[in-house]
């Protein structure tokens, strides 16, 4: 398996030995050796079906494939990097919080419930499935992993959400009352609720 190493907390370092890795376009900051970068094509390399879904849903992932021999460093806007290993599970992630993923992983688009309407991130999230590593971005500081178990459901702010992993059921919670209409809202009218068991990653900034 490819090794995703962190150099500091904001820079991801990947060694390539003739294999490939997919990363957000423009996220390469430096490389040594013989590495080529090309656009991963429609659907961020997820195939034609994913591409069509992305076109229809607006949840676009712009990825490039980096292949060859050498070391590549990735970073984006000084955001903190978090590496998550997947062993056959599915990770749901906001497409703009995705930095890099192993080439063997499959990406697709999934319906994320009504939450997207409020968070402005689209009604759909990107899913990543398979065996390999994924690097996620957290803005505003280091990410926090919160565990969800059947007894303890979790509610998060849609803007702070980065990714979720495990057997989770995601629902959209609204708390809109007459107070919102007269402008007396608490600013937390929309939230995301997770039931089941798994892990939810959040960032300390509401974009």
């Amino acid at each position, binding site marked *: 398996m490819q090794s995703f190493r962190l150099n500091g907390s904001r820079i991801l370092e990947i060694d390539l030995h003739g294999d490939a890795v997919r990363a957000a376009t423009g996220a390469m900051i430096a490389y*040594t050796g013989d590495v080529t970068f090309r656009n991963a094509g429609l659907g961020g390399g997820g195939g034609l079906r994913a591409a069509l879904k992305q076109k229809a849903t607006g949840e676009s992932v712009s990825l490039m494939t980096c292949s060859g021999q050498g070391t590549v*460093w990735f*970073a*984006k*806007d*000084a955001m903190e990097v978090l590496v998550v290993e997947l062993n056959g599970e599915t990770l749901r992630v906001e497409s703009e919080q995705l930095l890099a993923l192993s080439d063997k992983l499959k990406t697709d688009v999934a319906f994320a419930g009504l939450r997207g309407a409020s968070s402005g991130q689209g009604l759909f999230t990107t899913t990543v499935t398979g065996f390999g590593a994924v690097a996620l971005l957290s803005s505003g500081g280091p990410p926090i992993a919160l565990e969800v178990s059947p007894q303890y459901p979790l509610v998060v702010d849609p803007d702070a959400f980065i990714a979720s992993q495990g057997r989770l059921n995601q629902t959209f919670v609204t708390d809109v009352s007459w107070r919102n209409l007269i402008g007396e809202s608490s600013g937390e009218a929309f939230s995301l609720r997770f039931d089941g068991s798994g892990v939810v990653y959040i960032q300390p900034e509401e974009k």
Partner: protein
Amino acid sequence: MGVFEQVNGKVITAPVSPGREILARRGAMLAYTGDVGFSPVHMGPGGAGGMVGRMVQGEQVAMMVAQGQGTVHYGYRGLYLTIIEVDGSGPLSVEADRLVAHEAALQSTVVFLGSQGGIRGAVRGAVSGQGLFTTQLHGYGCAAVLSHGGTIAIPVDGSRPVAVDPQAYVAHVGQVQVDISASVGWRDAVGRGSGEAIQLKLSGHGTVYVQASEQKL
């Protein structure tokens, strides 16, 4: 060696004593202890000629000198600071607006990039948005440079040239040649490029510092 010390990622301390003055960007002093005086530097290193050159080139940042006996804390706009030691093996090249402080023992000059790599050097400056001029520090001493999100140091040696995104490039030290490499294909023309068409290629012996972001300061 290392007279500058990192307090945290964004603040450094520098000791000042007679004969060991510190030149710093104006306004970068956060605090000091002891008997230290600050005065603006009107004539940059290189004398009047150097100053005129600087003004023409736009590669100018107002500096001040700290003199006396004590310790000064420096920081700038909450950006990350990296301490780089110049050990005489080669000059430190850095954009003037990234240079926060350096020991007065280091000689600073402004270099026209075109003279390093001919027309390609000029193109490099234009493409990377770094201007056609860069500041070089020669000699022995410490310097502190600004970055967005901190830096990593990547060694460059003869067998291992390094390619760097122009927006993420911060500084380099040593006997390093910088060249621009463009691999612009039809994909970029139709907006389906990888976003990595233009790179700086560094070869030779030394170290290049790269920041964790593609934002300018």
